[in-house]
């Protein structure tokens, strides 16, 4: 391996890790919702789009940095999620129907409404927040003049990555240490037991959906400095979120982080060494492989090891 090849490999790994961190945050909301409620939310990407629009308008109208908007979009999406869960999804879950999946179609409908509401309100223009630091990066050659290779580390990507880690840590703390968090975990693990323990399951579901929405809204804010925005953008991120959820293990936020990182690295390595056109194939192949061979996701591996001790 010569220096140039090392450079390509290292740069690919850096890209994979950063991408993985962002993917993880998208997956985090999904894994929470799927873990607690066992429902498939196909409006996930659309919720992210709403979060991105909030960040976009905050930036364009008031010059508020998208990273600050995390604290604006998060709460707003929380309330949107609560409304959706309380007045739509719960209503459908309550009725007895042959297939429980009509709930999924409901979320498709919600997604359609959100996307076309955005089209009506904001036109289908492509938008982005041209922040000053948009393309700034640290360069290895700036730090070490004689470096034989050149590596770059994007500043907004790194900041988004750190934010993603911080949000995950916050969520972990919330789920482990607070009463509401514990109730949510109980609901996720065993619905009947949670009911017996006197957990208000209905309320936990509403809170969970709100929380999941807030997380993906926050992910939207972290994405917009490095990506872009238009009304129909949701779909592809919903799919990515699924992959991460399954890869990481339903309901596990550590799993979501690992799942995101694995996916990010996998996609980057495929792009460099196989071909970028094949990266999405790889994405779904590991998805199906995880479903089949690792039903509990990466999280189950962790748990097994913990058990072994």
């Amino acid at each position: 391996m010569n220096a140039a090849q090392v450079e390509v490999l290292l740069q690919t790994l850096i890209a994979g890790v950063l991408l993985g961190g962002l993917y993880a945050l998208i997956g985090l909301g999904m894994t929470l919702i799927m873990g607690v409620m066992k429902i498939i939310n196909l409006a996930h990407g659309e919720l992210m789009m709403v979060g991105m629009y909030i960040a976009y308008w905050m930036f364009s109208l008031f010059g508020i940095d998208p990273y600050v908007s995390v604290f604006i979009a998060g709460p707003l999406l929380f309330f949107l999620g609560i409304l959706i869960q309380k007045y739509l999804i719960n209503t459908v879950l309550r009725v007895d129907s042959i297939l429980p999946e009509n709930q999924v179609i409901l979320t498709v409908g919600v997604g359609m409404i959100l996307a076309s509401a955005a089209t009506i309100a904001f036109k289908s223009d492509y938008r982005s927040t041209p922040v000053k630091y948009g393309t700034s990066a640290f360069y290895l050659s700036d730090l070490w003049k004689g470096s034989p290779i050149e590596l770059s580390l994007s500043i907004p990507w790194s900041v988004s990555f750190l934010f993603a880690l911080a949000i995950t840590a916050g969520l972990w703390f919330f789920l482990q240490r607070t009463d509401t968090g514990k109730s949510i975990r109980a609901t996720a693990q065993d619905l009947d037991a949670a009911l017996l323990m006197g957990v208000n399951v209905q309320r936990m579901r509403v809170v969970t959906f709100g929380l999941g929405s807030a997380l993906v809204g926050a992910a939207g804010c972290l994405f917009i400095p490095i990506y872009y925005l238009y009304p129909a953008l949701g779909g592809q991120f919903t799919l990515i979120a699924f992959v991460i959820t399954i890869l990481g293990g339903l309901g596990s936020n550590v799993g979501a982080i690992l799942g995101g990182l694995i996916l990010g690295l996998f996609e980057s390595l495929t792009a460099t060494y196989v071909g970028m056109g094949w990266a999405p194939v790889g994405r779904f192949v590991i998805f199906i492989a995880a479903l089949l061979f690792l039903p509990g996701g990466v999280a189950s591996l962790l748990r097994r090891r913990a058990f072994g001790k």
Partner: protein
Amino acid sequence: MSESLLQVKNAYKFFGGLAAVTDVSFEIRKGEILALIGPNGAGKTTVFNVVNGFYKPSRGEVWFKGRNISGLKPHKICRMGMARTFQVVKPLQRMSVLDNVVASAFLRAESREKAVEIAEETLKFTGLYEDRDVISKGLPLGKRKRLEIARALATQPELLLLDESFAGLNPAELDESIGIIRRIKERGITIFIIEHHMKVIMAISDRIVVINYGQKIAEGSPEEIQANPAVVEAYLGEDHHA
């Protein structure tokens, strides 16, 4: 002593690293009613699942009609002549009572007509014929439990596994169900039953196997079991914890 229909030989079942069933052995003889009892969480249903093929034993073997069936799928075992009911009743909710039983009668029927015939006969036998057109979701618990038995019977088994078919029944229903079990036995069908209801157990079973913490602690006739100190201890222990 009549010949043996089913043998469980040193069966183990592990989940993760935990043993749910440890070194359990017993046999069921043709024509008898064998009861499996034990405190909550003792591993009774796991034993059932090992016997009927939902779980492959981690170690040990299960023999049915002279053949090693460990690792066979439940539907194959059922075809060999073993049927079961579930503790949590699982009727085909949105089907009528008759259709429920027809679905399982198809196992031994070539045509639909034959299946319906078997099903109707079974419904009469279990006293559900009047309710044949009711959607099973709407049945009261007692009848749903009986529907479970009817479905299992319609597969024309030699060995019938009943998982708590008496739980939650009122006294009248209880008597009716005991009657049905006796009549099943009269038909020459061997019965393996999990039950909590001591009165029922003592009334109907020929022999009893007791397990606790996944291990067999006693085996014998109802009288022997009642007198066994280990059994009393196990049940008392449960009371203490409850």
